[in-house]
């Protein structure tokens, strides 16, 4: 084989590979959002012991300044050493319009955090929750205006500069209106583009918007940068009744079993996301109150695992 033939052969090999890869789906790793509560650690223990948990996600800022249980620290060290630890911020507040002292402190803590653990990626929620006056809150959307996009991009860049790993944004399960649902996707797209960030697609958050605004999966996600989806979250939630017109609103509260509709939705859409690397199951530690809850937690995890296995198998068959 002369040089030209070798080059052609190499090209064909590469081309063949790329054709195969275009249709292949790498089996996503399945993981847990690690919670520090003893009830969670007890419930999750058998899953960790059996080796079923490929990866963990740690909401590091939840425990800054508090004592983390030894069992939790051991898991963090184990998964960090195995390059299987994801970081997830819950309180930075990406869209706070002016950098606050609390955010500066958050970035300092992040610096220590990434020195201590080997995070593969770091994500935060879309929206804002704090200001100078409000030091704690719940993430809320903001109007999609260029100034707000600049603020979000600057904050993402600040996180990336410190962490030196890919950064991502999680879509919210709350929107102020249908219009807001639509704009959230455009907003996240505009924020991720300059930092080449990833989308953490929370399937349950999409489901919340489907229920509350009577929209389809496609309608909720049509403006999101789905090609950037590298991680997924799956969880359960519950309805809250409100006074206005006696309506029930479905909330991303992580306090109940994963609804069957969410499992069905995941099964249906997962083949559309061949680049998703990780699927994380979220359940609040303080909602595992008894043996029944722990069994439900195991069942949900195992159902998720079988859906992922089936989707990967069918896609690659």
């Amino acid at each position, binding site marked *: 084989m002369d040089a030209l033939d070798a080059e052609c052969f190499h090209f064909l090999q590469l081309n063949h590979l790329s054709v195969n890869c275009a249709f292949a789906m790498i089996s996503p790793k399945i993981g847990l959002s690690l919670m520090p509560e003893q009830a969670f650690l007890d419930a999750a223990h058998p899953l960790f012991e059996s080796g079923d948990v490929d990866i963990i996600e740690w909401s590091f800022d939840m425990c800054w300044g508090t004592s983390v249980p030894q069992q939790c620290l051991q898991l963090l060290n184990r998964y960090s050493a195995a390059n299987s630890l994801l970081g997830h911020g819950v309180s930075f507040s990406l869209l706070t*319009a*002016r950098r606050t002292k609390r955010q500066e402190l958050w970035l300092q803590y992040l610096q220590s955090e990434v020195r201590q653990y080997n995070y593969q990626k770091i994500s935060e929620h879309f929206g804002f929750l704090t200001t100078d006056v409000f030091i704690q809150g719940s993430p809320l959307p903001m109007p999609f205006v260029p100034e707000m996009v*600049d603020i979000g991009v600057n904050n993402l860049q600040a996180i990336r500069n410190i962490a030196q790993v890919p950064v991502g944004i999680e879509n919210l399960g*709350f929107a102020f209106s249908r219009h807001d649902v639509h704009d959230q996707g455009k907003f996240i797209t505009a924020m991720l583009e300059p930092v080449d960030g990833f989308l953490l697609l929370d399937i349950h958050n999409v489901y919340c918007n489907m229920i509350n605004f009577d929209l389809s999966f496609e309608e909720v996600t049509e403006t999101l940068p789905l090609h950037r989806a590298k991680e997924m979250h799956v969880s359960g939630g519950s309805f809250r009744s409100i*006074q206005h017109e006696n309506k029930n609103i479905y909330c991303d509260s992580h306090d109940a079993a994963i609804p069957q509709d969410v499992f069905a939705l995941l099964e249906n859409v997962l083949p559309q996301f061949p680049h998703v690397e990780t699927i994380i199951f979220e359940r609040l530690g303080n909602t595992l109150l008894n043996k029944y809850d722990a069994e439900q937690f195991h069942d949900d995890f195992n159902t998720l695992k079988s859906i992922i296995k089936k989707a990967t198998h069918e896609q690659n068959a």
Partner: protein
Amino acid sequence: MNKTHDHLMDFQEFLLDTLYTHDDVKTIQQKLEQYQNDPILLNWITTLSPHMLEVAARMLQHWGKKSAA
């Protein structure tokens, strides 16, 4: 970044304070619609669903915390 976005920060403080302080949706809407500093933000306010305003108010009243300073 800090100086140029003061009006947005003021708006965020105003939004959170309104949701934190009031329970009744009509009152929340009336208060928010008094915001006259920026037509784009005011226009956004008019699109907000009353149901979701009530949810936001409940969430903020549950999870929200103000600085002691």
